[in-house]
């Protein structure tokens, strides 16, 4: 009897030990470990001001697909050498995929001559041709050239014939800006409309800057900004310069940031080319995770299409379709 009792206690002890091992360790029942994909995103800017919706999309995808996204900005805007250094550093530090907004066209193809990308690269805001030329690379981008043409079309429709068109650009244009400006210029040229490039000074009296643009107010002007920063600067100038509306027939451009959209709502910006950055961000991380998980080269360049872009006016801001796109809820 005593032996039986002892046996029972020993059995009880063993059961307890097994239960403990089951509940507190993964020795017997192994909990499935989700693989986390470290992904580095390297943009060509010093801030993320123009990537707000893009980041929201990335973060959503990262949570859903076990991505660990490290968003990296440069120390100096548009510095190709810094971007190259960061690309190499992130690759060495164990990133499973790189998402790059290249500061220069052809930069990645150039880099491949010197070094080999050991991880998949997803290009954003770049030319598809660049991704097609580069090994292990995908491209999530908008048709910036087409977007420029689309804006040109609207300007031709709306401007009065005597108005001069000024392209407001950055001193160091990035790939997207270059393509957009080329598309706009080509379309305006087809309509025999001349376009003059102009870089807005960082400081100065709004009235004086606009005087310069409108040749001492002797002619009307249409302003088209090739990048969101110039568009915002021009909108601020117009908001501060009373009476400018008489000479500046319209301000157009591209951009999705909240300040830019506010100026569209106030009527200071007449028309805007916008993109679905949330989807672009989501897709770039989704593609990165897929490629990193598969450890394979992107199957073919033909898979890579352009994401849609749109031209909107003030009244379109309350359109449900654009509202969802421009103010995405995470």
């Amino acid at each position, binding site marked *: 009897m005593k032996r039986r009792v*002892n046996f029972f206690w*020993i059995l009880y*002890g*063993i059961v307890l*030990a097994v239960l*403990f*091992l089951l509940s*507190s*360790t993964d*020795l017997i029942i192994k909990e499935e470990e989700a693989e*986390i994909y470290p992904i580095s995103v390297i943009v060509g800017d010093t*801030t993320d001001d123009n990537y707000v919706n893009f980041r929201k999309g990335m*973060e959503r995808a990262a*949570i859903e697909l076990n991505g*660990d996204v*490290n968003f990296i*900005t440069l*120390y100096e805007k548009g510095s190709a050498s810094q971007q190259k250094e960061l690309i190499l*550093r992130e690759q060495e*530090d164990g990133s499973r995929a790189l998402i790059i907004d290249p500061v220069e066209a052809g930069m990645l193809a150039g880099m491949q001559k010197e070094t080999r990308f050991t991880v998949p690269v997803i290009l954003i805001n770049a030319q598809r041709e660049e991704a097609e030329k580069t090994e292990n690379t995908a491209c999530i981008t908008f048709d910036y050239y087409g977007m420029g043409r689309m804006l040109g079309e609207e300007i031709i429709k709306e401007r009065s014939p005597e108005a001069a068109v000024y392209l407001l650009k950055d001193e160091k244009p990035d790939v997207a800006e270059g393509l957009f400006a080329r598309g706009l210029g080509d379309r305006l040229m087809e309509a025999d409309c001349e376009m003059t490039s102009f870089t807005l000074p960082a400081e100065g009296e709004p009235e004086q800057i606009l005087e310069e643009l409108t040749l001492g107010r002797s002619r009307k002007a249409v302003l088209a900004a090739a990048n969101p920063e110039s568009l915002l600067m021009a909108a601020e100038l117009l908001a501060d310069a009373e009476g400018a509306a008489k000479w500046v027939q319209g301000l157009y451009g591209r951009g999705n940031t909240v300040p830019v959209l506010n100026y569209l709502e106030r009527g200071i910006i007449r028309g805007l080319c916008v993109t679905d950055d949330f989807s672009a961000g989501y897709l770039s991380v989704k593609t990165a995770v897929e490629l990193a998980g598969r450890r394979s080269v992107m199957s073919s360049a033909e898979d890579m299409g352009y994401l849609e872009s749109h031209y909107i006016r003030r009244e379109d801001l309350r359109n449900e379709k654009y509202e969802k796109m421009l103010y995405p809820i*995470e």
Partner: protein
Amino acid sequence: MKNMKKCFILLSSLWLCAASLLAGCSGKENAGEKNSIRIGVSLYRGDDTFINNIRGELEKCAKEYEKETGVKVNLDIQDAKGSQNTQNDQVERFISLGCDVMCINPVDRTAASVIIDKAMAADIPVVFFNRQPVEEDMDRWDQLYYVEAAAKESAVLQGSIVVDHYRENPESLDLNGDGVVSYVLLEGESSHQDALIRTEWSVQTLKDGGIPIEKLTGGIANWERSQASALMEQWLEKYPGQIELILCNNDDMALGAIDAMERAGITGISVVGIDGTTPGLEAVESGKMMGTVSSNKELYAGAVFGIASSRALGEEIPAGIELEEGKYFKCPQQIVVKNHK
């Protein structure tokens, strides 16, 4: 008896195995010299102008630190959008992604204990900022820090802007010449300790400064420009020609009040704010706002980052960051009025 002994040995070895396994699971690897650190930052609301300014400064600090030391900084900044549950999830994610340290701007200061529990279990130091967890929570662990711009100091400085102005030119505040300055008050969240302290000490400083004051009304605008603007619009209609001063717990609400005044075409009412945000400073410079109290944002963010980076590397807190009681850092502040920054 012999069998009993065997069983005892078997059981003991089983327990020993289990214990060593557990120790293996919870033990931390002894890292060599680190060449990268990971800092998780959770903001109570990313659209708060002051917090957004701090976020920008934190990013600058991280870049400068990388350049100076060559240590890679992975700064993971998340917006809790005013939800404590979201913030708790973010903290869990920071822990699962192996953050070395967390910088938390709590949504609800009374709910910090949940974050502290998780951080303590994962042995990850936490630098709280802008919203102070309750003292009992802060005392639970020696790896908890708090960075702030002292609320009482801000309020006293805000009050002194008005007092100085009144002493120089009483008519500019007592617009109707009745000998009393009639004011309205725009307050931050009722659950935020800074809102309560700022309100109390700002008004007290006006009284101590000898200004005859009368409160017309006050309201909670939750630090938000739009809410302050809506409240102010109502008050301008309800108290026509009576409001002479608007005391605001922060710059965003001061700007909201100015928006409402501009819409109503009303000028002459003095507005004071706190924080020294970029739009706030611009409003002071343009003369729309009488003044604001600015904390040194570089220093504020520098303290948050300095504590975080040193803790992440297991180093001593930099000598330039003087901590009170070994855990509190109070950022200095200054008055900003037009042409006198």
